[in-house]
């Protein structure tokens, strides 16, 4: 069950400490061990960082026994916050008590922190200790105490706060006021509305800053409910804008019960405030407000009318059919007005209603009234009708629009063309295309065609546009290509690619430009093909840039992306395009990309950008397997001639190494090989020996006669094993046995092998049992993650029936055993294969049990 836990733990070295927390009983033992280790850290002379991280981890796993060691840091300027995070989260009385004690020992800013932690824990036992702090000389302390009492929110806390009103300086008073309101909220939540209202009223009557009094009044109204409507009316009638707004907000919180009050005060107010009332009424979706809003929408002046029209749009979708028809009648009335803003508003609201799945009757009403406007003899009304026909997508209006698109009045003509974007159906599309081709330079027709295309059936539209290419002029073809590109899809792509291959420079120009912005990845193969084969170097380069852009911006699998990078580097002649490849690699740092980038270090020309990419990953804290990244950085240090990058790489490598060590320690990894002796192991020591702290097996001069295994003395069931290996020889074979059994008096063993060597890298082989590969990458891909003749990291994880293997961070196996007869426990053994002249090196073998 903790498979993923592990996976992420490894990937994100920096957060490892978090992943070790307890999940099941078995892990709990580890937590106890870890807890005592962390307590030791806090009681030692470790540096600030180490202690900070110990506190952080204890916030997640610490228990009462850790409290004392953490509380020591409550007065520490740098560590107090870390300590408080822990104490705020550790359950039980000890943490609360430690914080209360600190109230007396800690001073200044750190005391404020302690009070805030008590506030977070809502520790009502601290009430008595907090009360005197309300009048502390340090305003920050007093403020924190007010907040804490507010957060505790009990009756005694409320009483203390209420008593403190009117004492102390203004800034503290403000917080005391808010503390009261916090208490009022929590008391109301507990059902004690009476005390809550008494509190809000006390705040309201006190000499406090106006924003608190406003908040108090607002809360009083809301808490009182129906009996607060009188107060609501008073507040709404006040001159003061802030009070009015605050009351409006209370009305909103009350919901529909406030409607009669709002309607009632409406007539007493200025137009400006009437408009605000109208907005509030519409938002409560109360149909009883409809008559008032309709009146304002038809008879109101200027801004009030405008507001009311929008309010109708807000209210209308919730109305019944008849009421909707009345509203529409009003709106069409307003659409005939001579006032541009009013007309625009009415149109927008009608269009909104039209888009809201209206009933047949409503639909018919909209169509009839729109047509009427279109046929109107008044220019303004006709224009309004045309715009509405387009916005409401009334397809029956298309013939009329096509006719009006030839109108002598420029405004009518433009409006009709625009409307065609909304009205044109598939059947009418050729006519709109013809219109667009006739005036290829007119953006209005182009936009209309685009608008139609965006909602009409995709392939059908594309075919119609592609067919129009046939007899078109170059300029017209360019327009059609743009339209096709906006559409996308298979037909569009085919047509644009064909244009890129044409003999016409202008078309090539347009087509390669459009392909460079294509939004689906099926554009990649044709772009590569164009980059390889076009003669014109400008378009060739453009195609290549478009090709690498696909990997940068569009969705691809890691393998697809890597292929694009490889292909681009193979084709690119200029550094500009090569650089783009590294931008892709930097953005998508999966293990394959890291290994690939590392491999590019060998290329002198590419060493610097590859180094920069690797260093950038490290500096940004990009989640990459620590072993993998460390190796990449090490290779940067070894290969790059750029001093700056070399130095930064070395710095990052040191950082990651330290971090990874700490993380592994936190996870409970233990070394299985001390670098000096075979303690804990047994096997043929003629074949297996220790050199330079490495385990070495086999020979490069003499053939190894038979399979030999260095076996662990101990058996393991669920575990994670990490080691490094290096295989030398022309043809190599070795591996790591897991969950394996010894065969008495025999050189062979029986069990799973995480295989290594030519043809078998990273495969799971069943040694002496089923004698076959159980899982692994496809044959031709097994070499990919391996650094030949060099050190590689190997990671093997066994949890229940599941076995997973990674080489250099790249997962090669995820296998689940289905045969219940096969044992899931056994020894670990390092192999050297017989019948080969080869040598295996192993080092840094460590394991943690799960």
């Amino acid at each position, binding site marked *: 069950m*903790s*498979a*993923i*836990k*592990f996976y*992420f733990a490894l990937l994100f070295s*920096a*957060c490892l400490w*978090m*992943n070790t927390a307890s999940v099941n009983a078995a892990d709990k033992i580890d937590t106890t061990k870890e807890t005592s280790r962390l307590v030791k850290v806090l009681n030692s002379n470790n540096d600030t*960082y180490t202690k900070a991280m110990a506190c952080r981890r204890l*916030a997640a796993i610490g228990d009462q026994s850790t409290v004392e060691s953490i509380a020591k840091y409550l007065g520490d300027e740098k*560590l107090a916050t*870390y300590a408080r*995070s822990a104490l705020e989260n550790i359950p039980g009385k000890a943490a609360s008590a430690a914080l209360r004690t600190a109230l007396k020992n800690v001073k*200044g800013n750190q005391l*404020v*922190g302690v009070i805030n*932690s008590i506030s*977070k824990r809502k520790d009502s036992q601290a009430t008595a200790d907090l009360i005197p702090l309300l009048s502390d000389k340090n305003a*920050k302390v007093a403020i924190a105490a007010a*907040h804490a009492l507010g957060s505790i929110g009990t009756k005694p806390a409320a009483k203390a706060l209420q008593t403190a009103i009117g004492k102390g300086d203004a800034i503290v008073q*403000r917080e005391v006021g*808010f503390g009261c*309101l916090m208490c009022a909220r929590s008391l109301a939540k507990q059902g004690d509305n009476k005390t809550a209202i008494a509190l809000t009223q006390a705040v309201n009557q006190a000499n406090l800053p106006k924003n608190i009094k*406003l*908040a108090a009044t*607002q809360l009083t109204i809301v808490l009182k409910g129906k009996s607060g409507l009188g107060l609501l009316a008073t507040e709404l009638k006040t001159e003061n804008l802030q009070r009015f707004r*605050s009351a*409006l*907000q*209370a009305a909103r919180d009350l919901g529909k019960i406030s409607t009669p009050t709002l309607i009632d005060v409406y007539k007493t107010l200025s137009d400006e405030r009437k*408009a605000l009332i109208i907005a*509030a009424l519409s938002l409560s979706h109360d149909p009883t407000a409809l008559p008032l809003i309709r009146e304002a929408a038809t008879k109101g002046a200027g*801004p009030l009318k405008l507001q009311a*029209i*929008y309010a109708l749009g*807000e209210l209308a979708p919730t109305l019944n059919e008849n009421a909707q028809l009345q509203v529409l009648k009003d709106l069409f009335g307003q659409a005939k007005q001579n006032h541009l803003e009013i007309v625009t508003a009415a149109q*927008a609201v009608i*269009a*909104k209603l*039209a888009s809201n*799945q209206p009933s047949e009757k409503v*639909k018919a009403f*909209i169509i009839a009234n729109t047509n009427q406007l279109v046929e109107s003899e008044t220019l303004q009304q006709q224009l309004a009708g045309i715009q509405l026909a387009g916005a409401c*997508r009334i397809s029956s209006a298309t013939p009329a629009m096509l006719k009006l698109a030839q109108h002598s009045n420029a405004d009518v003509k433009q409006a009709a063309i625009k409307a065609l974007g*909304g009205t044109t159906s598939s059947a009418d599309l050729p006519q709109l295309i013809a219109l667009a081709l006739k005036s290829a330079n007119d953006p209005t027709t182009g936009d209309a065609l685009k*608008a139609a295309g965006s*909602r009409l059936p*995709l392939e059908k539209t594309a075919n119609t546009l592609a067919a129009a290419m046939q007899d078109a002029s170059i300029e017209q073809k360019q327009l059609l290509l743009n339209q096709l590109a*906006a559409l996308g899809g298979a037909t569009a792509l085919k047509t644009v690619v064909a244009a890129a291959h044409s003999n016409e420079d202008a078309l090539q120009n347009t087509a390669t430009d459009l392909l460079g912005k294509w939004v*689906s990845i099926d554009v990649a193969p044709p772009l590569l093909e164009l980059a390889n084969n076009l003669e014109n170097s400008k378009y060739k380069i453009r195609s290549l840039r478009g090709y690498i852009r696909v990997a940068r911006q*569009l969705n691809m699998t*890691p393998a697809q992306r890597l292929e694009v990078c490889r292909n681009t580097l193979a084709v690119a002649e200029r550094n500009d395009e090569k650089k783009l490849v590294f931008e892709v690699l930097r953005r998508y740092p999966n293990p394959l990309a890291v290994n690939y980038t590392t491999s590019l270090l060998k290329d002198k020309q590419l060493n610097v950008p590859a180094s920069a990419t690797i260093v950038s990953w490290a*500096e940004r*804290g990009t*989640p990459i397997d620590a072993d993998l990244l460390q190796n990449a950085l090490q290779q940067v240090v070894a290969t790059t001639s750029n001093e700056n990058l070399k130095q930064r790489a070395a*710095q990052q490598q040191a*950082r990651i190494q330290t*971090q990874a060590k700490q993380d592994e320690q936190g996870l409970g990894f233990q070394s299985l090989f001390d670098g000096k002796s075979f303690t804990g192991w047994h096997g043929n020591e003629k074949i297996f020996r220790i050199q330079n702290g490495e385990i070495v097996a086999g020979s490069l001069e003499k053939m190894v006669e038979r399979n030999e295994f260095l076996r662990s003395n101990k058996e393991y069931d669920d575990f994670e094993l990490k080691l490094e290996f290096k295989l030398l020889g022309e043809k190599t074979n070795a591996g790591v046995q897991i969950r394996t059994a010894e065969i008495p008096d025999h050189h062979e063993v029986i069990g799973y092998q995480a295989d290594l060597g030519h043809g078998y890298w990273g495969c799971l082989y069943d040694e002496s049992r089923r004698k076959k590969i159980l899982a692994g990458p496809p044959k031709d891909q097994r070499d990919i993650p391996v650094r030949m003749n060099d050190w590689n990291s190997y990671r093997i994880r066994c949890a229940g029936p599941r076995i997973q293997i990674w080489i250099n961070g790249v997962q090669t196996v995820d296998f689940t055993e289905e045969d219940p007869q096969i044992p899931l426990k056994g020894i670990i053994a390092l192999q050297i294969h017989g019948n080969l002249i080869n040598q295996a090196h192993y080092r840094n073998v460590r394991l943690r049990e799960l």
Partner: protein
Amino acid sequence: MTNKSTLNRRNFMKTAAAASTVFSVPTIIPGTALGLNGTVAPSERIILGGIGIRRRGGYVLGHMLEQPDVRFAAIADVRADQRKTVKAMADKQNGDTKCDTYRDFRELLARDDIDAVLIATGDRWHATASMMAAEAGKDVYSEKPCAISIELARRLQQTIQRTGRVFQAGTQRRNVSNFAHASKLAQTGQLGKIHTVHSSIYQLIDRHDWLPAQPEPDPNVIDWNMWLGPAPWRPYNRAYVEGAWRGHYDFDSGAKLLDWGAHTLDICQWALDADHTMPVTYEPKDVPDDNVIECEYENGIKLVMRRNGWMGLGTCPVRFEGEAGWVETGDSGQTAVSSDQLRASLPSPSSIPGTSPKFHVRDFFNCVKTRSKPAANEDVMARSHIACHAAAIAWKLGRKVKFDPVTEEFVNDDEANRMRSRAMREPWTV
């Protein structure tokens, strides 16, 4: 507050969703026209202040400055260069030199004339500064992620409520038409019964290391203590201030999951009419080169957070799948649907990308005036942020967690519950 029936609203809406090819033009129209009617009297203007404004903040501020009824009066920033840049921007728009600058935003909040603030610091500051602004009586537009922990998200919501302020989270896609339309397709049953929604996230990073210590700069140039704010102490390094704070646990939200998740999970909640609730289980999946987290709502609908497998419709994509079809959309403004029938209802191509806060800031200012709730108000924000944090916690733990949307606690899970909050550095108090 928790109205479970809304999740069923879709079923009844479905019958109303006749396949209409003629009528379906979704448009985002302002709920109110306030402030759009040309000139506004100076006394009726909203006076705005800014806290911590750099790249994203500058983009949002640009849209705010365009509003005829808004005047930007003051900028507070811990960086001298940013104070200068933002002042220049505001003065140019205002046609004077009156934009005030502060190093400490508390001075800005103490001003009586300021009605509202734009908060665009890094994540570590958002909730604290928002709450302090609310308590000082200001309405708040805060960039996302608005809270660095579950506990702060809820506390922010409560503070906004208690102080009677208007709050808008900078999750502007709630006011961008292609996202609105995609959500509408799901809400109105045009996709059939929804079974899975997908929310894109970016690469997750959870760093706990400290960059090498550098000498602290002159606080008049960069005020490091103030930059850290409520985050725990650590030694100064210039790179943090230049943006390298991202991915660091103390400064970032939910191992960076909220960077996109605060937007995309939020849109999924919207599409499902689930603003009153959130998924009840969160399970990280072992998918190579991805961070897949599968979540499930109480009614069985799945929400999948993932990095890969998107169609290429721009950043922050979402996808909704139902028994009758699917829709996918992203920041490019383009929308892909499963059938020509769904295609017929698509709005005309919009030139407003998903990153644009054009309508979102207007929504905010309208609500400042009408005291109504903007699209990404504190309630909406709290739920989607908390759900994102729950997902991030599941990912950090590497195992499935159960969450109770009412108590906002993980179910019988001490370990996860202890990851819901962190301490705020002394002496910050909210």
